[in-house]
């Protein structure tokens, strides 16, 4: 299959800040590809280069076989871009926005209605409401509609669900799934780890570098240290105490438990429990767990470099 997106060694600096330091990856057609990274990891810069809005300092990128610098015109008609910040016309109504973006792409809403129908039916009751007065979730749905109205082959979605409630987030991802089935390649960035597991493949970004690229389950195999979920009533004190334990590698709060990794290759959970008892945690529970994406991401962030090189 032809790759929908290829980047080679993309670099970009803004003054003293190196936003991207040699990003290379490849996304095949009809894949739902997630970019995971903390704020400032370079996700938005990467999207802006791919959307042909800014030029890279070094390296190159091609979308649908077209170079982002040389063939930016051709690219623009074939991709849909949704910036991280809501950037539709707040003072135009839902309908006016949609018609406007359809026309500038030389098409009509009617022509591609079937593609956006699922999303549009939810917007329909607010047809004549101004975009600025929609709720966060509705705004994102409208933005997605506008990005889809010209039937793009590739969608670039920069943090589409940030600031959106849990139900709307779920709906949004269901829509992405349906769009993928129609053969649209989707590149999406998100700060939410639960969303990362919904992607076909994810790339971890940190400080302008790619830390790892794999499937959500594949990426957890990069996590090699023994992981325990530790529970106790006083979670806060537990974290502080665990960090002083001589064998502790990392300690993070994870939902209602604490995820703990040990420096040793095969530590015993009862040993840990015994130590905790001596420290006054009578109710402490410790059990080995399988690492999730978030654990992996945290571990990779911690080491700051690719784990393959590390081990």
């Amino acid at each position, binding site marked *: 299959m032809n790759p929908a997106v290829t980047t080679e060694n993309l670099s970009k600096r803004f003054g003293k800040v190196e936003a991207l330091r040699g990003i290379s990856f490849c996304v095949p057609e009809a894949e739902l590809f997630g970019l995971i990274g903390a704020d400032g990891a370079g996700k938005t810069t990467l999207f802006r280069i791919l*959307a042909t809005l800014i*030029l890279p300092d070094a390296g190159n990128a091609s979308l649908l076989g077209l170079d982002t610098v040389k063939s930016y015109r051709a690219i623009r008609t074939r*991709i849909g*871009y949704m910036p991280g910040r*809501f950037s539709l016309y707040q*003072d135009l109504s839902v309908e*006016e926005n949609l018609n406007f973006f359809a*026309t*500038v792409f*030389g098409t009509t809403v009617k022509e591609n209605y079937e593609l956006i129908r699922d999303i549009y039916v939810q917007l329909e009751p607010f047809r004549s409401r101004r975009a600025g007065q929609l709720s966060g979730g509705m705004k994102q749905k409208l933005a997605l509609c506008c990005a889809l109205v010209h039937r793009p082959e590739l969608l670039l979605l920069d943090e589409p669900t940030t600031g959106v409630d849990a139900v709307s987030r779920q709906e949004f991802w269901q829509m992405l799934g349906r769009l993928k089935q129609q053969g649209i390649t989707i590149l999406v960035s998100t700060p939410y780890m639960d969303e990362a597991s919904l992607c076909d493949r994810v790339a971890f970004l940190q400080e302008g570098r790619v830390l790892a690229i794999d499937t959500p389950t594949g990426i957890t195999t990069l996590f090699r240290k023994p992981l325990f979920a530790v529970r106790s009533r006083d979670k806060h004190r537990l974290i502080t105490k665990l960090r002083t334990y001589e064998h502790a590698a990392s300690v993070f709060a994870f939902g209602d438990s604490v995820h703990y990794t040990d420096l040793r290759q095969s530590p015993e959970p009862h040993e840990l429990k015994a130590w905790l008892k001596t420290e006054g945690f009578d109710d402490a529970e410790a059990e080995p767990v399988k690492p999730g994406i978030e654990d992996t991401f945290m571990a990779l962030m911690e080491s700051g470099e690719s784990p393959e090189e590390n081990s």
Partner: protein
Amino acid sequence: MKSMPKDYLQPMRIVVHLLRKEFIQIFHNKGMLPLIFVMPFIQLVILSNAATFDVAQVPFHLQDYDRTPLSEHLVKRFTSTGYFRMTGESSRQDKGIDALISREADMVIVIPREFEKEMINSGHARIQLVINAEDGFNAGVVRGYAYEIISSFNRDIKRLLPQMSSPATVQPNIEIRSSGWYNPELVYSEYMVPGVLVVLVTIIGLFLSAMNVVREKEIGTIDQINVTPIKRWQFITGKLFPFLVIGLGELTVGLLIARVAFHVPMLGSYALIYFVATIYLLVVLGMGLLISTTTDTQQQAMFIAWFFTVIFILLSGLFTPIESMPHWAQNLTQLNPIRHFVDIIRRIMLKGSVIEEILVPLGILSVQSAVMLTLAIVRYRKISA
């Protein structure tokens, strides 16, 4: 991607939709409408009435050392015109100076002893006018009035002094008669209204356009526009045209007010005014868009727009005559579009000038509009480095 048949109307359809969008945005903005359509006309009415160069009721101090029928007659000439009123009288020189310093009077008239006698004998006599020139412009106007009164007095002197000896010297050797052509009564509102109208059209056009693109940058919509296949000329046309329409609409209402409220004559053709106004607005809007595309925030755009507006207005000849500016500033005004449009609109309205007579300023405006629009289009980039 489906291969679509080439649609030659498509580029125009995009422009039409851009226009529709701009107009919808303007009319959705309830706070902006009164600013665009009411404020300028309040300004027009206030400025045109207030910004007059007429100096009414100049207070003067009299020192008449002659005290003859002729000197009294001269004084009466001053007081009866309505331009002057006497606030004091004395026969000591320092009193007159005191009156000037205390601002009791703006002018001192000194009529020397034997004024009448000298006039009868030689046909010549002198009087002295001391004018407060703190405000040079004001002093010029006062001197003009006084000069006018004295000249008319000179003309009537034969009738006033039949006993004058030599008829040959009765008429002053040099007589300067001034009369205001095209505005014979020097009604300042006739002179000011067209000028103020130009300023209003300029401010509306420049600020609306200067704030527009940068606003899209601030709220981020420019990104969404830039990833579309809209071409630069389409984008710029979509931005220019609505403001051109608003500018011309503004001009129309302004001309109506000029006619109905100020009775400013219209000797030339309206068609010509609209033609020139269109070219002029292209200069202004091109400049506004240039400002807008080169700045990052509305605040920056606002400051730059103000910077140019103030310079343009002060160097337009609207409030201070260009002829009294230093030479370098006079040359500078040639670059000032407001100067040329003020010049043209006054000529058309008050003088009935036709297109052949305004070719030079019109040519300058045309060149400026071409330069500004080109710069605006070139500077607007859909990609940044």
